[in-house]
Structures are given as C-alpha cells and as structure tokens.
C-alpha cells in the first residue's frame, strides 16, 4: 500500500504541480497577454507601473491614492492590522481627516472613509467617487485647471457596480492622473 501511495503521489505531483500550471500559463498568455502579465502601464516604451497597483503620488497637483500600510511597496503587500477600537488609531484617522479638510480650504466637511483609511492590500489603486472629488479643490489650486473640468474627469473615469449589484462605484487613480498628464500637468 505504501508503494502504491508513493507512486500515485509522484504521478499526481507531475500532473498537478507541473502540467496543470504550465498548460494554464500557455492558454493565459495566448488569450489574455495584457492581463496575464500584470496590466503594465507603459510610457514611451518604458514600463512605469501596473494599472492595478497603486503608486505614491505626493504632489498637490495629483490625485492621491489611499494611505498604504507599506508605503506602496509592492513586495510588502498587506494592511495595517490596526485595531479600530483603539484611541491612538482613531486619533490618527481624525488627524488625516482634518488634513483633508485643510487641503480643500474648508470646502470638504464630510470626509469619505476610504480616503483616510489604509487598504487591505496597501496597493489599492481605486478611490470612491467622493474621495476623488474631495481632492478636486486642492488639484485645481495647484494646476490652474477648473474644478468643473476636474470633476468631469472623475465622472468620465467612474466605473459602476458590476452587473449593477457587485462591488462599489469607483475610479482608478492611474487613469485620473493620466488624464491630468494629457492636460499638461507635470
């Protein structure tokens, strides 16, 4: 019985551990090469990141992604694992919310939750629509673009719930900032 178990384990090892992933790899690479290789963003033939992975954008002229537990280090994905019931955590989030209000010169009062909390992966490249709009006054001041134009950019890149049911309405930070670059923002 031991020998049968050993031989079966080895046969299945080859079939599952090698044949299955390698065959799946070939099909994925042929059918969906862009997604399979990481949805990479290129500029003048140079890879600058991935559409799905957040990068730090620090300047006032850019849309900022959500806070990241790992400072957008893609080799260290994960959340803060903060205990939300703790007072020091709550104080930090409230300070971030105050900073958002200050940046908007007091226009923003209700602060969207996703803008001041860290994501689960630390690499969330999406914002809720209110979180993107909350940044519009700051970006308008820094770039000279009108708030109407910036709000229109947000609206144009907004993706709804899938099948009207699943997930949330959202907008990708890379796409927003690409739209800004196309309008000459540097």
């Amino acid at each position, binding site marked *: 019985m031991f*020998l*049968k178990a050993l*031989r*079966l384990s080895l*046969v299945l*090892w080859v079939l599952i*551990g090698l044949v*299955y*992933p390698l*065959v*799946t*790899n070939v*099909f*994925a*690479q042929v059918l*969906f090469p862009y*997604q*399979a*290789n*990481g949805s*990479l963003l290129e500029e003048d033939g140079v890879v*600058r*990141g*991935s559409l*799905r*992975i957040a*990068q730090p*954008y620090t300047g006032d002229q850019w849309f900022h992604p959500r806070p990241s537990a790992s400072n*957008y280090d*893609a*080799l*260290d*994905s*994960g*959340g803060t*694992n903060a205990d*939300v*019931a703790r*007072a020091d*955590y*709550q104080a930090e*989030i*409230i300070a971030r*919310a105050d900073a958002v209000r200050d940046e908007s010169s007091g226009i923003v009062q209700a*602060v969207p*939750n996703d803008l001041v*909390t860290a*994501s*689960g*992966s630390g*690499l969330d490249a*999406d*914002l809720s629509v209110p*979180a993107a709009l909350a940044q519009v006054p700051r970006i308008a001041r820094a770039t000279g673009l009108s708030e109407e134009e910036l709000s229109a950019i947000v609206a144009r890149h907004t993706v709804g*719930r*899938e*099948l009207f*049911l*699943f997930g*949330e309405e959202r907008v990708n930070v890379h796409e927003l900032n690409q739209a800004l670059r196309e309008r000459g923002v540097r």
Partner: protein
Amino acid sequence: MIDLLMIIVFVLLVTVFMIAIGTYMYRIFFFTEAPFDRLFLPVERVIYRLSDIDEDASMNWKTYAASLVVTNFIMMALMYLVLRLQAYLPLNPAGIPNMPPALAYNTATSFITNTNWQAYSGEVAMSYLAQMLSIIYPMFTSAATGIVAAVAMVRGLTGKSPLIGNFFVDLVRTIIRLLLPLSFLVALILVAEGAVMTLKPYVAVTTFDGTVQTIPRGPVAAYESIKHIGTNGGGFFGANAAHPFENPSPITNLIHMLSMMLIPSSLIYMLGLVLKKKKQAWVLAGAVWFIFLSMFATVYISERLGVPALTAAGITGGNMEGKEVRFGIAASSLFTTVTTAATTGSVNNMHESLTPLGGFVPIAQMMLNNVFGGVGAGLMNILLYVLLAVFLTGLMIGRTPEIFGKKIETHEMKMMAIALLTHPFIILVPTALALALPGPVQSILNPGSHGLSEVLYAYDSGAANNGSAFAGLDADTVFYNTTIGTVMMLGRFISIIALLSLAGSMGGKVATEGNVVSLRTDTPFFGAIYVVVVLIIGALAFFPVLALGPIGEQLVMWFH
C-alpha cells in the same frame, strides 16, 4: 437596498450551482458509469497503471483511513523537500532562499491539512516552482482528500456494506473529473478579468513620482482558482485575495465566493440524492443558511455602523480600514462570512481591522466549523451534528436513536465524542498556553481584549483548518509555527479517522425500513433542532472566551 438584492442573488447562484455540481458528484461517486467517461476514463486508467492501483478493489474503513493518512504524509514530505531546497531548484527568478525548518514544517502541515495558514509572505519567501509543487499540488490533493473522506462517510451511513470504496480511485476521480477541469476554466476567467498568470520575473519600475517599485508576478490565476474551489485559502501574495493581482475586480470576487461555496453545498445536495430524499438536503442546507445569513448580517451591520468616535468626527460610510474600494463594505463582509463558513481562509479584507463585533463572526464560524464547512470536512461535521441532534432528541423521547434507519450505539457515540471534543480542546488549551507564557505574548500587536482575539483566532483558524488570521500577530516564531502546525494536524486527521471509523461500523449494520416511531431528519422541525444543537454546543464550549475577547471589546467601544 442594493446590498440586500446582492445577497439574495448570491444565495440563488449558490443554489443553482449546488444542484448542478451535486448531481454531477453523485454520478461520479455512486455510479460505475458517469458523464464524460470517454474523456476521463483513459486518463484515469493511465494513472492507475502507473501507480499499480486495482480500480475494482473496495476497502474497509481501516484500509481506507490508512491509505488516506499514508498518502497525505508522503505528499507532505515531498512538499517539505521543495521548500527546504527551493534555492537550488529552477523557476526561481527572484532568487528566493530556502525556507527555515520550523517555517517549512508549519507550511507543509498547513497546506496538506487544507488549512493554508501562512506564517510567510509569498512574494518574498517562495519561488514559482515552490508555489507550484508545494502549494498548488496540496491545494488539489487536500481538497480531494476531504471530499473522498466525506463520500466514504456517506457510503458507510447509507450503504449496506462495511466496505466504503477505494481511496485511491476516489482521489483520482475527484481530481480528474471535478477539480482539474473546474480550476482550469475558472483560472482563465480570472485572467480575463485581470488576474496575473505568468512565469516571467518580477518587474522593477520607476514610478511616475520617481520612486522605485518592484511588481511581483507569478502563476497566480492557476493558484487562485483551486485555492477557492478547494476551500484552501492561502494567498499567492501576502495580502491574499485583497491583492489586486489575485482578486482584481468585483466579478473575480464573486467568482471566488461562488467557488468556495460550490463543493461544500454540493456535497449536501449529493447526500440528499444518495438518500433518495432531496428534502433532507434542503433541510440541512436551510439550517446552515440560517446560521450563515445571521452571521453575515452581524458583520455587515457592524461594519456599516463603524467606529462611533470616527463617525462623530465627520468621517462617513463606516469602517473601511483594511478593505478595498472595489469591494466596499458589502462584498467585504460577505467574503468574510463565506471564507470562514466554508473554512477557506482567504481574505479580501484584513480581519484584524474589522470592528470587534465584525471580527466576532469569523471567530465564531470557525468555532462552529459546520456552517457549510470546508470541502468534505464540512459535510462530515454536519453529519456529526445530525447524529448528535438525533441522539439528544432520542434521549428526550426515550427511543434508541437512529439515523437513516440504522441504530446509533456505543462505538458510534465514542467516535462522535472524540470528533466533537477535539475541536474546543485544541483551540482553548494552546490559546491558554500561549497567553500564559512570556515569549508567545510578545507576538501580540494589539494588547488587551484584541490581543486575546489575535491568539484565539490563530488556534481557532488552525483547528478548523481555515487559515485566515488576525494578521497583526507575529506568528513566524518557533513556538507558533510548531504549536499551530500540530493543532492543524490534530484538527484534520483525528476527526477524519474517528468519523471514518463511525462510518465503517454503521456500514456493517442493516437498515430497518420505515420505522415509524423514529425521529424524521428531513423535516423543518429537525432543521430547527439542528441549529439549536449547534449553537448550544458552540456556546457551551466557547462563550467565556468570546466574552473576554471580541464581545467585551465591542461593548467597551460602544459604551466607554
């Protein structure tokens, strides 16, 4: 309102797939001729010939259990070898070193027991080859092991013979006819939606802001599909299914959740078909759905209400700490409920950053361990509680307890008691031990009630073969690696062996047809008894520690 519609559609989708795959599994395991024989039989015959397996030989419970355990230990040894030697092997573009012994032991036990507890982060600790040979491999075989153990138990409880099938043949048929085709198809859908699937190396880029970012890649989609279909749950990357490359969109999130529910629910339906009483399947499915939906409502409402101090400071929308925007609170809460009901253990949000009452839900579901449950292990636990409910009501009405026409006697009761009591024992004793020792306490990130929850969650997750974590706990220490590793082994194999023994002894009994005075198990009344028994047993074992952990913390947050 849309969220309510979402949950209704989700339940309907699960039910549709449950009927389809449950019927298919009934044909695979209970008939000599099954669909697509012309495609699958030749492949299976080659495997039987290479492994010298006689496909017509049926086993008694002892041979079945022994074959299961021996095969699993051989596989575990193969996995351990690759982890210890990955630096010298090919397909290691990131130059990842060998895994240290305690961590490799923990990882090998974790994946062979279908737990997928991870004290490492894949992007820095595992080569592509190790992901394939040490992780994808046991994701199939441990899932198949659970499924065939459940099938063998059903054969014993319902059949006329102490012979309960051939372990090797069942294992091969499960992998070839069910897991491989499904995983391949689902993997391609995941890639289409944005999941990564490549053997090309990591990409180092200069970001638009001028910083450097290294983007890890790998054979992710082939891993993700079986991870959820087999209720495994380990992440290719540290962030697991919160990572945009593992779970890029709300659609992939839905596919992941449906995959997790697929086989645990289908096995319940298969049981109904075997008994020729579909009503039995609907009663049991209804009972576990009742617990599931109560749990979902708890975590969903608690996350929507969020943290009172932050709401008062003008931050809107509830608790988004550790959650991804594309999923939001509804799809994150549902994923949390699914992954700890079907004991998968993948996460699309960080459970440690749930509100305390939200975090109560995964802990409680892993304690109950039969709200659908993992592939195979779930049905075995459901049947265990059915037997227990029959026994308790039998005592009340003064009748010899019977299940499916067969008497439940002393040997069965002993095996039930072993399977039932192991679970709280291997959760509570190691938790108490870790909290009493000075070293292990140092691993806690958030001291106080939350720290108790961190340690409790770890052993709960190991014992239920779930694998998710309150990830703030620094579990990569020799103490946690060895104790959690051992808890996973005990949680897996003690109950499988005890319940196969129970099935073998039931298989030797003759069913008395149509005994009118015995308690019927296919009525809504019995479904209610089932729920009450599950909740009473769970509460008796675990309420004190839950009160000290998440429940206490929530009360302090609300009223302090």
